[in-house]
């Protein structure tokens, strides 16, 4: 009765979850291929791998991961702006002078030297281990090689990163805006791009994090079970 002849059955690999030995092995393999273009690597046991490569080795790193090591699943590609926001969390009173804020740039896991950093993730479709890849984006000329020849799916992600962070992708055929209007000025996800909604009206949500009166039954903080 059933017309479903070509049903693929699940071959269970449930027992085999990504192990840390495999993560170390990935870093070793990648270092063997990339040499000193691999700048830093961080393996957090049982959690994830972070790798930072030199900017000019960005595409090469993708190629090695995809073609040599079998990381063929493209998860996402984006960027991080490490500049602390000059507007804080947008909770300043607009009638008061703006408070002093640190503008010291501190990069996250796997270090770095520049304000903008690329961030991408690829995963191995058979043993399900992912690699978070980072690279610095030069401040004076924010351009990195495009990943489209390696992962076709990088196309839209690079368009989004281009409009949101102002990072160029050398070799991308069509860097039009994906979300924003064509004549939009500025790069919204950069930290120095103000969130205008917060600039024109003080944010009332700040009361949410103030301690509530003791014994309030409607407690959302959940300090007791």
């Amino acid at each position, binding site marked *: 009765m059933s*017309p*479903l002849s*070509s*049903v*693929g*059955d*699940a071959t*269970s*690999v*449930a027992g085999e*979850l*990504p192990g840390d030995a495999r993560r170390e092995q990935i870093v070793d393999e990648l270092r063997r291929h990339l040499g000193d273009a691999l700048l830093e690597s961080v393996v957090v046991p*049982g*959690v*994830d791998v972070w790798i930072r490569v030199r900017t000019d080795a960005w595409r090469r790193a993708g190629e090695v991961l*995809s*073609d040599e090591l079998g990381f*063929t*699943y*493209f*998860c*996402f590609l*984006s960027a*991080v*702006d490490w500049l*602390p*926001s000059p507007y804080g*969390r*947008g909770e300043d009173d607009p009638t008061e002078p703006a408070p002093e804020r640190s503008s010291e740039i*501190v990069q*996250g*896991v796997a270090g770095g030297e520049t304000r903008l950093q690329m*961030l991408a*993730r690829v995963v191995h*479709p058979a043993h*399900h281990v*992912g690699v*978070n890849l980072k690279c610095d984006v030069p401040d004076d000329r924010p351009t990195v090689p495009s990943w489209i020849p390696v*992962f*076709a*799916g990088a196309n*839209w*992600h690079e368009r989004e990163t281009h409009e*949101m962070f102002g990072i160029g992708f050398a070799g991308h055929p069509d860097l039009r805006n*994906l*979300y*924003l209007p064509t004549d939009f000025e500025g790069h*919204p*996800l950069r930290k120095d791009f103000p*969130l205008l909604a*917060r600039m024109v009206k003080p944010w009332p*949500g700040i009361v*949410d*994090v103030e301690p509530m009166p003791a014994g309030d039954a409607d407690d*959302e*903080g*959940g*300090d*007791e*079970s």
Partner: protein
Amino acid sequence: MTMLSDRQQLSYIAAQAADARVNVELETEGMTLNIGPQHPATHGTLRIIARLDGEQVVWAEPACGYMHRGYEKLAEVRTYPQVTTLVNRIDWLGSFANEVPFILAAEQLMEIEAPARAQWIRTLLFELSRIANVSLFLGDLGVQMGAITPVFMAFRDREYVLNLIEAATGGRFHPNFDRIGGLKDDLPAGFVAETRQVMKKLRNFCDEIEDLLFGNEIFQSRTRGIGVIPRDVALDYGLSGANLRASGVDWDLRRDQRLPMAWDKVDWKVWTHTDGDSFARCWVRLQETREATKLVDQLLDGLPSGPVMAKVPRIIKVPAGEAWVSTENPLGEMGYYVVSKGDLGPFRVKIRSASFNNISIVPWVLRGVYVPDIITILASLYFILGDIDR
């Protein structure tokens, strides 16, 4: 002579095949067809610009951004508990499932884990949102092919699931129920018995849809062999969820990673299909919905007792660090890359939503297809606008 890698060869063959599908002999005057932004097949406001040659698509491109709400920017000015309100609205048909990976990422950074009961209820509500989400897809599928009946059945039966979600969380669509360290509340009285009844109804619904729609000759002829996505192309574009499993990749994030959830404690099966066409994608979703009802039954059986909230400080500060957590949401892989600087709110949140990648393959898959197939292919890829535009 330079050696071509397997991948390059494959992509070359794929491009050649796509070119071959476009009939170049029948050179007629080209036409540009605009589908959307307001078209019933677009689940919101997606616009597809298709250039046609006769009845065939030569070039197609979705125009996104009609619903871009900038959640990544907004998350940077919210505190961690406030972010769940935002991410609820990404995939609005399976809202609870959106909250879970974000909360898990925050918990991973804080190195806390929810109590066992909270983990089980999270998994339970996660699967209920999957059922609510995908059952609507199954009904909607009929409408795209001109069958009106399935959608009424879907809306009728989805309501039972939404009632359950409402009973537990207070919200039909936007529960906002997940908290760092556990859940807002325990399940209400009578929830377990009621859920068992509803799961029976939903299994019945799946059977009805399988008979009515999947056994239908018109449905089959309009989906079988249409919109084929080979395994390697699917991986290249980062397709996930049922779209990937329909292309023969046996990968389910519920099974293949270690998460503090209850999926590894119950017995269930990952469904795959080898065809990679529209039919396979729809069929995998149908099987998954039925599997999810069985999953829910087992979760109800094994529900542990105990608290639903761990001890967490009243004011939540997440230690500095970076975390990536993704889960198998109704639409596919949904993940958050959370960067924390030890503040009340995240420093940066990258939201990796399933539909964004799933729809980025549209220019590839629509090349050479006939106009009516655009609708069925889009329907079978299954996207939610909020999940593309974020």
